[in-house]
């Protein structure tokens, strides 16, 4: 008997959801679009490409070391644009963004580099487009310093020992940088797929609230109560279908990351080697939290205006502080502390751990527990609020 009732109500929820175009768009299309747009838009923020930036070298030095510098820089950063006739013209091109940076090798560069004396003045400088990302600016400055330092070391070595220069390979032989394939900071796709998946999963709030307000308004809720359907059965019938909806969202968003993103010229999301059990448990915990919160908040909403505004506002706020829109790792410490209060952040951190660090269930146990506990508390609150609401 109870199963018949539950089945009939679950079927009703799914039929109503299937015909609610707004809900389908916000649950499926919107997160997919966010994944594609944000991954492409922020691609270079997460993985800056510095080798193909347009730049110029203003070579004022006539010496051998000045020429050697140009050769080495060109080898690393590609062929420069034609150097503007004057410094002012070059700066104007930087302001307009036609050049991203300008390397100036001042007169006396070769002389100062080969001299053991302390240099009298700056002989190499980088001037950048005001819009150049700070990380690229600092990276270019560091590379310039390293290259100039290497040239100076070679010149002094040749002068005092007679051993000739080795073509600029010594620093590269000494220093290596390695970024682990998993761990640390994510790529744009690795950040955006879980982030917008979490956002989309929490958007069940709007869909649940919309139908609940309609049921309250048109007397269907009273009719169901008069037919003996308990508040708990009604809540279960509302929550259960969305476990499936959340699972479908997860499958779709991950598929978009793995297969669709490469079609747009972006890196694909790699799920190779991840702990699938951890992923499934994490998705289930997120779903529990999202549905619990949706049912609790929906039980408070009385009008269609509330359902259509409060849901998105709550979601956007939780997403903003939770690291969905702005990754937590680039937030200042006090904002990172605030982010840790958002269930969306627990969800995102857990998913990132699974996807980037191939974490096991035990390793993300804290996030899973927090989400599950939050979901259970919200479900209990929803039961209380919904029961109160079904009294006339």
């Amino acid at each position, binding site marked *: 008997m109870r199963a*018949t009732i539950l089945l009939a109500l679950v079927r009703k929820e799914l039929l109503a959801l299937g015909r609610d175009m707004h809900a389908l768009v916000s649950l499926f299309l919107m997160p997919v679009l966010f994944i594609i747009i944000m991954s492409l838009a922020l691609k270079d923020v997460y993985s800056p490409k510095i080798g193909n930036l347009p730049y110029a070298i203003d070579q004022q030095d006539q010496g051998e070391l000045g020429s050697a510098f140009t050769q080495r820089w060109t080898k690393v950063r590609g062929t420069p644009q034609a150097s503007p006739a004057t410094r002012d013209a070059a700066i104007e091109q930087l302001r307009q963004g036609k050049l991203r940076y300008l390397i100036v090798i001042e007169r006396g560069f070769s002389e100062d580099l080969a001299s053991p004396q302390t240099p009298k003045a700056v002989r190499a400088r980088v001037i950048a487009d005001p819009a150049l990302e700070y990380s690229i600016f600092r990276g270019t400055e560091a590379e310039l310093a390293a290259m100039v330092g290497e040239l100076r070391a070679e010149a002094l070595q040749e002068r005092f020992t007679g051993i000739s220069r080795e073509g600029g390979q010594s620093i590269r032989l000494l220093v290596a940088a390695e970024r682990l394939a998993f761990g640390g900071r994510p790529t744009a796709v690795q950040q955006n797929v879980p982030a917008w998946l979490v956002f989309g999963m929490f958007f069940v709030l709007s869909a649940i609230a919309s139908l609940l307000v309609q049921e309250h308004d048109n007397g269907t809720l009273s009719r169901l109560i008069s037919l003996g359907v308990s508040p708990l059965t009604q809540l279960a019938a509302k929550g259960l279908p969305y476990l499936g909806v959340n699972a479908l969202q997860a499958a779709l968003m991950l598929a978009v990351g793995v297969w669709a993103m490469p079609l747009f010229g972006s890196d694909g999301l790699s799920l190779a080697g991840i702990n699938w059990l951890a992923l499934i448990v994490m998705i289930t915990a997120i779903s529990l939290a999202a549905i619990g919160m949706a049912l609790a908040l929906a039980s408070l909403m009385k009008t269609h205006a509330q359902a259509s505004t409060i849901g998105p506002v709550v979601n956007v706020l939780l997403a903003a502080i939770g690291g969905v829109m702005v990754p937590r790792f680039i937030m200042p410490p006090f904002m990172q502390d605030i982010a840790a209060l958002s269930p969306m952040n627990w969800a995102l951190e857990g998913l990132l751990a699974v996807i980037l660090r191939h974490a096991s269930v035990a390793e993300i146990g804290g996030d899973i527990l927090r989400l599950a506990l939050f979901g259970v508390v919200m479900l209990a609150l929803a039961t209380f609020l919904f029961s109160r609401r079904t009294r006339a």
Partner: protein
Amino acid sequence: MLELRDLAHLYAGSQRAALDGVSLTARRGEVLGLLGPNGAGKTTLISHLAGLLPIQRGQILVDGAALDTARRQRPTRIAIAPQEYAFYPSLSVRENLECFAGVCGLRGSKRDERIANCLAFAQLERFSDKRASQLSGGLKRRLNLAIALLPEPELVLFDEPTVGVDPQSRAFIIDAVKSLARNGTAVIYTTHYMEEIEAIADQVVIMDHGKVLRAGTLSELISQGAPRLRLLIGKDSATRLASQLEAMGECHAEGECLVISLAAGTTPELAINRVAASGATIREIDYGHYNLEHLFMALTQRSLRDD
């Protein structure tokens, strides 16, 4: 079948009782017409029967058992056909019926049979695949009716079931309610339309301010009304005489007419002579036509009810 004994209810924060000692009985095979202006307590009464409000004082008995017990044993014994379109607009007529059939615990062939019967009863077969949101007002009322009848309830409460429908659908719904009662169902029918109550009610209850003002058969109620004399004498004379003839009974002007509810011991001849003696010209006399509306207005007063 259903008996209310001294039912009372006071909403939190309210000074006036929504129900104040209401007693009434609905029997199988009969239509109980429930009349009352806004604020009479009808909605509170319906909420009690729907199980939405706890009983504060008094009793509701279903075949002698407390309502709570009866509802626990079989909640579908009492069905409410609410005033609102209480179904899912995005679902088709059939999908709505399938949903509520499931909610009523109907399964398999029994479910299919009940859906077919209710579609036929409400003459909705042609519209079974149509979305409920696309139905006309009359068809929506019929769907509301069909859903209410799915579990074969023993008592159906219709809450203003003909509001906003065309005359054909209204006649159809009234005939359907009559046939339900003929087949042994107890029916409570609330409406503002007096002629509907006159057409179908076996018993009539008039309520106001949470109290039952009158209860009985239609003829019993009408016979209880004060004799009413209506004289067409012109607006000025009607207004003037309304305050001069109070000794004859309750008087008031209604447009160009003077209406007197004759007090005990006063005859129509006496009242007519007094009016004629006052110099007014009597152009039309109406006496003895006392209907439910007159009784209802007399009992519930003429002031507007906006709550």
